[in-house]
């Protein structure tokens, strides 16, 4: 029996009349798991909000019909709508940091829904909340009940969120990118919990995601959206294994895959070599004492050869970003040494090392000065190339921009560009001085799938062309698999395993590495990618 039927839905921006969702139809049966797949701007979130009748300000539904559990939402009064929200349809949001009210205790937020929708006593409410907290594997439900959201990590908050929604046993659960902000391991845990709970309560799930791996792992059916329009729908298997539409194919192909083993093996002396590196963040300075510090990197040994790509993987808090920053001497180290071309650069401000090393940032929005034009941004590193004339410099900038596919855009401002284009600018800025060593800190994780693929490809090509060594920091194992020569796995500030790419991916030794690989969402169909769920 159909739980939700959406017919010819059309949503427009209130101001301009631009369609955000245009003629979208789909249905969800009871107990079914539907994935709605799309990149940014596909209208997938707007469509989901429309089901709740909670479109954000600035958007309005202008056409189509939504029937939820036999109720046509267009005719439902707001009181009727409120009665539906909660017991009939619940929603889990993307950003765990802002989806719980910081001013109200966890228990009160969970109880709020129960109090509104069910006539049960206080103690019964509390009992059910505690049960649910235990169900989502919160360690200390009693303490959690009275605690405030800010005391929990992102993964824990997402569990609390899930618990508070599932408490009402909704018939439909809408999950809007529920794990995008979490690291791979946590992502897996939360999603497994969600699916388990949904199964227990017979809840249908509408999962909104851009991650095809999740689709293949959890969803029975999938719907692909692009710029507000439906591209394709069908069973997950059919869509992923045999996409009919070009766009769907493009999405599937954009999944990173292992390249041929390159010949970029470490040979001779390493370009950058790190021994026993330690980074500790000082505690807060109090009036008379200093709080105990946190050790973020704790005794790391690492060699990177010229032209080699070494990937650092690990969950959040593993110290991988700190390692990258420390190796570029952007944050002070508290122990160990860094050598560049055999020279100790740990404590001295070495100009040669500074000019020969570069960094590509994760967030393309904050890494470009909004008050500078692209040409100026890319030209800035060339200030420190002394013998360059103005004409030569301009030529090099223009050539570099062309190299990253932004020819002729030197006069543009960063805010005029898309995320992918910005990341290209950031890469151009890093490469223009032809560095020997580049640290790329999650360079693609903020980008859409198809864009990720393009940027990774660009990065590979540039590396081949300019021959710089690269420390590639990522939690996305798929991307790592595509670009890395060697892989270093970090946990708790230490390296737990390192080896060649094929060794790590095919023959992981350490439990943590195995867990990471197991959690990585990959397509488990024959054809495009190989499932590597370890036993």
């Amino acid at each position: 029996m159909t739980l939700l039927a959406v017919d010819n839905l059309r949503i427009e921006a209130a101001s301009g009349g631009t369609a955000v969702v245009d003629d979208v139809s789909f249905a969800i049966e009871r107990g079914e798991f539907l994935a709605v797949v799309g990149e940014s701007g596909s209208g997938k979130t707007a469509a989901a909000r429309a089901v709740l009748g909670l479109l954000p300000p600035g958007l309005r539904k202008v056409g189509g019909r939504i029937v939820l559990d036999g109720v046509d939402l267009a005719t439902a009064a707001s009181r009727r709508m409120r009665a539906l929200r909660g017991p009939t349809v619940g929603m889990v949001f993307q950003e765990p940091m802002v989806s719980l009210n910081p001013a109200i205790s966890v228990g009160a937020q969970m109880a709020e829904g129960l109090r509104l929708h069910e006539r049960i006593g206080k103690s019964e409410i509390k009992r059910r909340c505690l049960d649910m907290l235990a169900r989502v594997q919160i360690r200390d439900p009693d303490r959690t009940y009275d605690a405030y959201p800010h005391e929990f990590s992102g993964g824990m908050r997402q569990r609390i969120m899930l618990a508070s929604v599932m408490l009402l046993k909704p018939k439909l659960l809408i999950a809007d990118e529920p794990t995008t902000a979490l690291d791979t391991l946590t992502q897996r845990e939360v999603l497994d919990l969600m699916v388990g709970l949904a199964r227990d309560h017979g809840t249908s799930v509408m999962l909104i995601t851009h991650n095809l791996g999740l689709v293949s792992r959890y969803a029975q059916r999938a719907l692909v959206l692009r710029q507000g329009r439906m591209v394709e729908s069908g069973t997950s298997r059919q869509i992923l294994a045999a996409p009919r539409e070009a766009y769907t194919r493009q999405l599937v192909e954009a999944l990173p895959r292992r390249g041929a083993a390159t010949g970029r093996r470490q040979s001779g002396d390493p370009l950058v070599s790190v021994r026993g590196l330690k980074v500790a963040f000082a505690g807060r300075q109090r009036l008379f004492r200093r709080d105990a510090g946190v050790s973020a990197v704790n005794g790391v040994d690492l060699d990177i050869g010229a032209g080699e790509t070494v990937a650092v993987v690990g969950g959040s808090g593993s110290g991988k970003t700190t390692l990258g920053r420390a190796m570029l001497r952007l944050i002070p180290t508290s122990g160990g040494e860094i050598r560049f071309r055999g020279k100790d650069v740990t404590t001295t401000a070495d100009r040669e090392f500074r000019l020969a090393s570069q960094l590509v940032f994760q967030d393309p929005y904050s890494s470009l000065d909004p008050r500078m034009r692209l040409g100026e941004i890319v030209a800035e590193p060339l200030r420190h190339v002394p013998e360059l004339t103005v004409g030569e410099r301009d030529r090099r900038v223009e050539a570099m921009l062309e190299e990253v596919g932004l020819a002729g855009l030197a006069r543009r401002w960063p805010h005029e560009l898309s995320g992918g284009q910005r990341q290209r600018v950031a890469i151009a800025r890093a490469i223009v001085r032809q560095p020997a060593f580049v640290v790329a800190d999650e360079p693609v994780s903020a980008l859409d799938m198809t864009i990720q693929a393009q940027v990774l490809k660009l990065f590979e090509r540039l590396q081949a062309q300019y021959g710089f060594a690269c420390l590639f920091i990522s939690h996305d194992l798929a991307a790592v698999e595509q670009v890395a020569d060697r892989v270093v796995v970090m946990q708790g500030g230490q390296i737990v395993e390192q080896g060649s790419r094929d060794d790590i991916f095919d023959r992981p030794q350490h439990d943590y590495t195995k867990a990471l690989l197991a959690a990585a969402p990959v397509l488990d169909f024959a054809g495009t990618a190989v499932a590597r769920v370890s036993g």
Partner: protein
Amino acid sequence: MRLRANTAIGGALVTLLLGTAITAMFWTPFDPLRINLRARLQPPSSLYWLGTDEFGRDVLSRVMVGAGASVVISLLTVLLAVAAGMAIGCAAGYIRGWTDRIIMAVNDALLAFPGILLALAVMIVVGANKVGLILALGLAYIPSVVRVVRGTVLSIREKEYIEASRVIGNSEAYSMIRHVMPNAIAPVAVLTTSMFGWVLLAESALSFLGLGVPPPAPTWGNMLAASRPFMETAAWLSIAPGLCIALTLLGVNLLGDSLRDRLDPRMAHG
């Protein structure tokens, strides 16, 4: 682009203000300084549109000339406060360490005084004239600017493009001038518009407390202050300059809002 209501109204009011100020440079109905003891405290009439004051001077002419004086004083004051505040705030926010601590300690100490009283005291020290007024009010508002600028600089410092600049090999001073300052200008611009309003208010408040721009040159503030004893007998004396101040402030505030909306579109309305 859609013309926003606040941009339109604010722009119109400010244009009116500037137009009046410029017109007054060349023409006013009467000499704003000419005393006519035979026509004292005349209510508004066809001859004197806004009436005359206790010395028989034409209120309309004085309001017109006062527009220019008020604008110039407010602009220069804001300029002084923003320029000094920017420099100090940037230094504190970027150098940090002891410099920052000392600057902020002094700044906090200054902030602990009500600005208007600080200005009053400074005004007595340097003398009640236009320069003194600009100096006094400028000084009184520098701490607020320093505070905003420092906060902004501290948040910009954490932006990745500053780190990028460091990675490139740029010196701290270069990063400061090339990357931090330009990006700190936007929030300061918003502050500037509201400060313009504060200064206009403070100028009139100072006059009210007995120390403003010296007569006979009219400013709205000293006109308003002088009107107080005639509240009951000649209300038009206080209504004209008061309304001018209120309308100008409204215009400036609305323009400030539209500027802020442009920087932070989420706050937009209408």
